């Protein structure tokens, strides 16, 4: 197994995306996206559905034309190169298995196209199938496989050619929750051992957090932030990223900064030398705060519900039409509709310009 693993790995190539733009007629689907992926990296494109992730991926694959911009794979400009000359492999959301070909024929198709000798091809098929533990199912048709097995056939078909880049478009979204967890671990392991540069598209932030070396978060065709999962989680660049990452998401309080102090109704918080602004949003994570006696914390609110998730309790507060969530230990008890205070660590709080959404940083 290990021998084959090293055998399958290739010299990974970096990808460099420069000022990608995509227009569908007048619709601007991808806006000036620039991004460098280093060799062997696992990069996840994350964003809500319809934000242009698939479009970006398909442009990298060569299935969609690049309206303007350049794409380099390794040190070669491939912006106008046909998909088959780009040395990439892609896993589709629907798996796109050829229904009339057996598992073995499906996996071996890229080699058959490349006119690989039969013996060599059979060995490669077996090696790839072993990698995804499909070696006993080689004679089945895709129609006779379960969802997870089909997913693995698609993976095997992608790895058999030893491409220098893997592209995956929501490959796990058609699986049920449990299987998704298993496949996630396997994918991560496989990418690690093969060391192939991978771009992975998903709308599921858990997948992004667990799989990625770096995450690129997108919205409406624009790149919002690029960084390690930890960076984008704890150091969001703007309101969108802050609200998109984490479940439950960050709590927001709107107010203003005057004389370096953030004030909202009932809240007053010294900031770290931020300049004055009339519309500011304060954000803090549910796990960075605790529920305390009324009047003891930075702000007070009425308890709306208490949810037990097993390993923790989520306390939801409601004031006006805003709600805030606090993560508490699992045996925490509180009376709904009672008033309580919320105390948080001011050093973890983030401030955003409410109008532009941008993070406010000390000047």
């Amino acid at each position, binding site marked *: 197994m290990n021998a084959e693993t090293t055998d399958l790995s290739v010299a990974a190539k970096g990808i460099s995306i420069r000022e990608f733009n995509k227009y569908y007629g007048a619709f601007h689907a991808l806006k000036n996206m620039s991004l460098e992926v280093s060799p062997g990296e696992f990069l996840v494109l994350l964003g809500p559905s319809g934000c242009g992730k698939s479009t970006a991926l398909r442009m990298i694959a060569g299935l969609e034309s690049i309206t303007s911009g350049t794409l380099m794979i390794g040190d070669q400009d491939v912006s106008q190169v*046909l*998909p*088959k000359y780009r040395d990439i492999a892609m896993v*589709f959301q629907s798996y*796109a298995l*050829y229904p*009339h070909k057996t598992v073995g024929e499906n996996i071996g198709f890229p080699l058959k196209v490349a006119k690989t000798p039969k013996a060599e091809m059979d060995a490669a098929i077996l090696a790839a199938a072993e990698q995804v533990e499909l070696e006993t199912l080689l004679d089945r048709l*895709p129609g006779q496989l379960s969802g997870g097995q089909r997913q693995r056939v698609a993976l095997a078909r992608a790895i058999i050619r030893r491409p220098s880049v893997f592209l995956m478009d929501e490959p796990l979204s058609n699986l049920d929750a449990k299987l998704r967890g298993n496949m996630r671990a396997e994918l991560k392991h496989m990418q690690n051992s093969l060391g192939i540069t991978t771009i992975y598209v998903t709308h599921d932030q858990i997948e992004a957090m667990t799989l990625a070396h770096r995450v690129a978060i997108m919205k409406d065709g624009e790149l919002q932030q690029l960084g390690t999962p930890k960076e984008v989680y704890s150091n969001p660049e703007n309101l969108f990223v802050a609200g998109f990452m984490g479940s439950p998401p960050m709590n927001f309080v709107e107010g203003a900064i005057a004389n370096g102090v953030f004030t909202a109704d009932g809240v007053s918080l010294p900031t770290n030398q931020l300049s004055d602004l009339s519309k500011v949003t304060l954000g803090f994570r549910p796990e960075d705060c605790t529920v305390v006696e009324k009047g003891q914390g930075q702000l007070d609110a009425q308890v709306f519900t208490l949810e037990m998730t097993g390993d923790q309790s989520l306390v939801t507060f409601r004031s006006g039409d805003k709600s805030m969530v606090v993560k508490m230990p699992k045996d925490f008890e509180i009376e709904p509709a009672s008033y309580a205070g919320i105390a948080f660590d001011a050093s973890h709080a983030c401030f955003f310009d409410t109008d532009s959404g941008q993070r406010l940083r000390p000047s």
Partner: protein
Amino acid sequence: MGRLFLTPAVVLILVFSIFPLIASLVMAFTRIRFTGGGFKVRYVAWRNFDKQFFGSEQFHLLGTFGPLSILAWVVGLAATLGLFWWLYRYCRTHFTVVGFIGRLITFAMALFLAWLFAATLLSGRQFGTVGTTLFYVVVGCGLQFLIGTALAFACSQHIRGSRAFRVIFFVPMMITPIGVGYIFRMLADTSKGPFANVWQWAGLGDWSWATDPWAARIFITIADSWQWIPFVFIMMLAGFESVSKDLNEAAEIDGAGKWMTFREIIWPQVLPIAATVMLIRVIEAFKIVDLPNIMTAGGPGIATESVSLQSYYAWRSLDLGSASAIAYILLFITVVICVSFFNLVVLARVRAKP
């Protein structure tokens, strides 16, 4: 309740096709003589069939026979050997009694047709209406299938104006076969038709296609194809468009070129549809009667006469017994060929589909 839904259809079919079928069978064994006011019916056993196969009408139905040429012997024997080999292989691999009987019937029909072909055409003699009908079926359907599929594939690509092409290509199917027959007669008029000048220029002068058996047959095939390619086109287009776009793209990424994608990915998936379309076309093609009737009246001689047309002419000369016998011969050949095609080709393709 459910019976109530099914009954009207069954009753209509019983009255309008099973009863006539039986009546026709009875007529095929009788001779009907019209006298003054009424008619007399006489039972004549196999005499009507005998006349068609061995008697005075043999040249008409089957063709003119005589000594076989070398080529005829070679082809005939090769076909015989091939058929025996096919049957033998079936017996060796997956033998069932029903399957064997079915294949035996197919075998007998194929053997008969092969020798018929060898004894008439390959020995340089004229073949009869059975041969002509088979010519329309095989050459016509083959042509229609090839062109229709090519057009459908072209139209399934991202082509500007593909909508307009679709509508245009569909039109000939709407036109009555009678109309098609007359339109093509107009077009093919060698002195007043649109190609008259080309005809004269090519030095063909007074020579008329209508006097040459092969030219006339080919001409009818062209008219028939003009009318029915739209059918193949529209069905195959639906087939091509049902192939998922993802598969095309996956093949593109896997490195396959256009031809490879077509052969390896698209074609295997439309094959069941193709087989069904072919079956429908073959069934319909066996019935061909309007076009030869309108365009050549079966001429020159009997060169373009189909079996249906022969039966119609027999009816017109009030020989109802022969008309029914000929119709039954056509029915038998059609059923054997179509059922064989269905069982051996279509079902195999449909079953192979996951």
